[in-house]
């Protein structure tokens, strides 16, 4: 395994909670190259031959195992697009931790576009955690454009946790999902933008199977001069349940656009959208200040809780 420098180690800790080599299967990608890889008996990681990226094969019935595939970029001016495909066998139950950290101290933009496709077998269950983090004082931007495609077979369950709290200048996140009978998708997105950052998050979820369901909840905070767009579309093509929720706090001169999109193509599709945008409530600040916190400390507690 390639030795990581201190910045790279810090990024690994931020995006994948990795402080040492993970247990189970993993692939660590540093500045476009593999810095270590391990397959396990049930989880095989192989490089793609046509484009940059990985194929991750999880055997049917694999339970309680994990895959870590974090990416870090510390070279200013580096741009890459990576295609990772996950083939998740029937009846398996696994944790997949991805994520990307960019440290850019240079003048040129650094960009990582990760395209992830998930083929989730019948009755399989996955938890997918993706964290994005940027640092560095250079003028070059830190850009992440993740694309996620999810194809769920009958009875499968996918739980996604997407987190981007700090330091990413520009993001266009696109998530699409197609669900067959009885499949279930839940997404929890947490996002904070500051400075002059720009973040766009788009979901298109098709509920194609009888009894399929999706629940997409985004909590976000836009500070300083940043801008966010949350565009969540759920299409009910069968008797199904869909729920999207965008709950946002704006601060300073931050701006947020929430676009609800519900399309029912079946009489028994039940779709709900909720959206709320507003500044921190004055009485919340006052309550915490009566407990002895300063206004700034109160604000931090409220934001931390909101994005928990």
């Amino acid at each position, binding site marked *: 395994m390639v030795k990581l420098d201190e910045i790279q180690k810090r990024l690994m800790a931020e995006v994948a909670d990795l402080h040492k080599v993970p247990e189970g299967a993993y692939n660590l990608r540093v500045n476009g190259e593999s810095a270590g890889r391990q397959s396990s008996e049930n989880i095989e990681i192989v490089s793609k031959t046509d484009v940059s990226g990985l194929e991750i094969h999880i055997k049917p019935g694999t339970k309680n195992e994990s895959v870590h595939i974090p990416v870090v970029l510390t070279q200013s001016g580096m741009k890459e697009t990576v295609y990772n495909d996950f083939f998740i066998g029937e009846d398996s139950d696994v944790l997949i931790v991805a994520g990307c950290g960019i440290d850019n101290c240079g003048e040129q933009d650094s960009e990582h576009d990760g395209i992830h496709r998930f083929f989730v077998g019948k009755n399989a269950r996955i938890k997918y955690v993706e964290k994005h983090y940027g640092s560095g004082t250079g003028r070059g931007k830190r850009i992440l454009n993740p694309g996620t495609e999810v194809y769920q077979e009958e009875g499968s369950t996918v739980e996604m946790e997407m987190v981007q709290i700090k330091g990413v200048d520009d993001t266009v996140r696109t998530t699409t999902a197609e669900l067959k009978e009885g499949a279930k998708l839940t997404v929890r997105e947490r996002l904070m933008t500051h400075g002059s950052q720009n973040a766009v998050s788009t979901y298109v979820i098709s509920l194609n199977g009888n009894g399929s369901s999706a629940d997409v909840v985004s909590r976000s905070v836009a500070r300083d001069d940043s801008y966010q767009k949350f565009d969540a579309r759920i299409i009910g093509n069968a008797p199904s349940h869909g729920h999207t929720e965008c709950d946002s706090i704006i601060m300073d001169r931050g701006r947020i656009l929430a676009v609800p999109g519900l399309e029912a193509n079946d009489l028994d599709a039940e779709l709900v959208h909720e959206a709320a945008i507003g500044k921190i409530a004055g009485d919340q600040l006052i309550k915490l200040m009566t*407990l*002895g916190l300063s*206004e700034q400390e109160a604000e931090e507690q409220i934001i931390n809780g909101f994005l928990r």
Partner: protein
Amino acid sequence: MLELKNVSYNVDEDGGEIEIIRNVDLEIGSGKLVVVTGPNGGGKSTLAKLIAGIIKPTEGRIYFNGEDITDAGITERAQKGIAFAFQQPVRFKGIRVYDLIRIASGKRINTAEACTYLSKVGLCARDYINREINSSLSGGELKRIEIATVLARNAVLSVFDEPEAGIDLWSFTNLVDVFRKIRESSEERSILIISHQERILETADEIVVLRDGGIGAFGRREDILPGLIGTSSAVSACSRLASEGRI
């Protein structure tokens, strides 16, 4: 301990100035349980907010342990030892009961310690300690959690604005015990309660009747309470529940 000297509070409305509190002189001594009662709209909650620093007097000065705190903000007053329980507790997204009690205590406390405060307000701590303080909690649950946060502050002066509002009869009995226990725990600590509940008035050392923004009466409970029984300034628990349509 707390002294209000000639305190007035006016607000601008429809081009004119309305007096909410006018020329109030009030002294609350150490180790005293003082209940402020009076008709609705008499300025009781405004008085509580003036003491907590949520609003500032238009005129007059406020002293706490001899120090002029008139210009001190909410945080500073809290740090000096004034705690305040809201009439209508605030909801938060993502902040848990444990977080609020920890912040209130001002130190790192473990879950078991935090739970003792919940138990004191009659909540099964295990069921509540990790709950978010959001709209999944009922008004009564929020109210008890609000009181627990004030208990966790161990403040020199605790101000409760209508603590009984939204609380059922069983909890109400316990609430009276909670005040009694704070009162008995230290000779230094004082409690100021805004309430017109007879049961709470009965626990008072002193009673203030606030009427039309001014002090209508102020004195020892045994002198003031007999004159209030049967008026809107001293209602019984049953009549309160009836008026809220709950019995």
